[in-house]
């Protein structure tokens, strides 16, 4: 992650940890806007991630239907190595170049997750 992406990543993490009580149970989407933004900043370049996150928040209002809306990224996968990994994200093909990013179900906190992407 680039530094600016990292900054936004930690800002949103901070919000998730300490401030969600203020906006509890508002999001009309899964994953929630903050999770969506985090995944965006983890996978895409800053401008795309920022634009998509803002656009997601704009859509997250009572006039839209809400529902399932997964972030996407252009996949650039290296060949898999034969070792034990912890899965953090699943990448589900959307079309030729793009993949949906799905968070794996709860992973054990004691092990540091390894990202399969690159």
């Amino acid at each position, binding site marked *: 992650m680039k530094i600016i992406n990292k900054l936004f990543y930690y800002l949103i993490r901070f919000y998730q*940890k*300490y401030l969600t*009580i*203020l*906006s*509890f*149970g*508002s*999001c*009309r*989407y*899964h*994953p*929630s*806007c903050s*999770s969506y933004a985090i995944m965006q900043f983890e996978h895409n370049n800053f401008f795309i991630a920022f634009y998509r996150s803002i656009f997601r*928040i*704009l*859509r*997250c*209002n*009572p*006039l*839209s*239907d*809400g*529902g*399932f809306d997964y972030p996407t990224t252009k996949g650039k996968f290296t060949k898999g190595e034969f070792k034990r990994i912890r899965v953090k994200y699943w990448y589900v093909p959307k079309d030729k170049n793009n993949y949906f990013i799905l*968070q794996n*179900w*709860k992973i054990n906190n004691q092990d540091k997750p390894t990202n399969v992407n690159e």
Partner: protein
Amino acid sequence: MSMNNNQNKQDTQKRILLATLISFVFFIAYDFLYLQPQQQAQMQYAKEHPKVDSKNVNVNSVDTNTVGLAKTNAIPNIKEVNKETIASTITTMNAIYEIDSLGRIAQVTLREKKYVDEEGKSLKLFNSTQLKPLEVRFADAALNKKAFDTVVSVSSNKLEVLNNSQVLTITQNLGTTVLTKKIEFFADGHYKLNISTSNNQNYFITPGYRPDIAADMYANHGALLMKNDATIEMIKDEDMDNATELVGIQAASAFDRYYTTVLYNFDKNMQVSVMKSKDDSPESFIHVANKALLYGYAGPKEYKLLKSFNPQLTHIIEYGWFTFLAKPMFVMLQYIHNIVGNWGWAIIITTILLKLVLSPLSHKGMVSMNRLKELAPKIKQIQEKYKDDKQKASMHMMELYKKEGANPMGGCLPIILQIPIFFSIYRVLLNSIELKGADWIWFVQDLTHKVSMSNLMDPYIIIPILMGATMFIQQKITPNQMQDETQRKMFMMLPFVFTIFFIFFEAGLVIYWTVNNIFTISQQYYINKMFETQREERAKAHDAKKSHKGK
């Protein structure tokens, strides 16, 4: 597993409590240890260095700054003449301008009632030891030295400009060169300056050092230059670094939170040098070749007044980086103030109008939220089942909503929209001279008043308490899906936390938040009632059907 879960919950609770506590401690400490001493130091300074009445005081050899520009047009050093007497006094409708024996504006005293303190002392804009507006420095060093040793002659030593404009001519005879300043004063306090030399000299003229009344940590102060492409170059006092030169300037202002001294001409493109003053603040010098036409003003940054001089001049009122939203907010508040004549009511009406504009959004949100009551048992089931994995719970919840064809959440946008509205009102209260000391009703005599740490018995504390109460009621009547006991407790504490937080904010801002809550409560109440009657009707219809079938 459940032990572990409990542990987790307690951790979360502790974390959130700790975060809240830390932010409070930080906020209060910042106010107490930093802002308050700053203000006290300033008051102390003001006491020790009273704004001297220049009529009877000798200011000995003020050492004006060293200018490091190694150019032909460098602004030279000067030593000031020893005697400083007032050559002319101009009284306008709202100010008294005093011109000193070197043809500069020595002091501006504000006449309006709101600028007179309890002891009957009028507000004086300038610190007499600093650079004065309309000071001229010649590019020619010898000529410059002479200019600071030569007393000017004025066409009149007293002018009363209460209706039509009047002209004061200041001439300074420097032997080979004669400098002439023709200043036309207008009753509203601004002036038009025609400046020229008899033999094509190059020189610099300044709007002076910024007013020194409200230069505090709460808002910006320094120099502000407007360019011909409508952009603004602001140099805050603390950011003043090296001397710079700017071109295409149409207005040069030196300002503190509420007051300005400005020279402008929106038909010209001027070259301006920004120099470091002796206390490292920026000072602007406009380059003039032989002659120039300039307009000027020194006084409060009142929107209406500046607009009447020149609409473009309103851009010198700045609200920090948030100007782009704070300014429209101010314009709206002022529009309503013009109708109702009271800033407190203007804030309240603006709040209600904003809520009305956003009400289609919030109405729809509230209506869908009422579905929560019906879905509650199923939501509880899901939350129980997946309490260890929030992601999974959220996904299943979304599946449920899809199945039921209803999304009970209000959305993130309505919550985020609150932030810019809140912040723009905050900035307007901080920076607008119009709102300083503006009253509302009853004991609320100043909408910018804050309860201080040392005086918690202040009656103004009623407003944040009222705010807390409305927030509490709002929470009570809003349906929510919080099943988790810890979260619920935290949530219930919020009105209390917000009350404490809001104690240290401007009264006007707390009033905004309170009215905001009251509006939400009424809207929610109306929708709850609507749903109740619907439910009753449905139940009745159902009963009627049943009894019909039974027959």
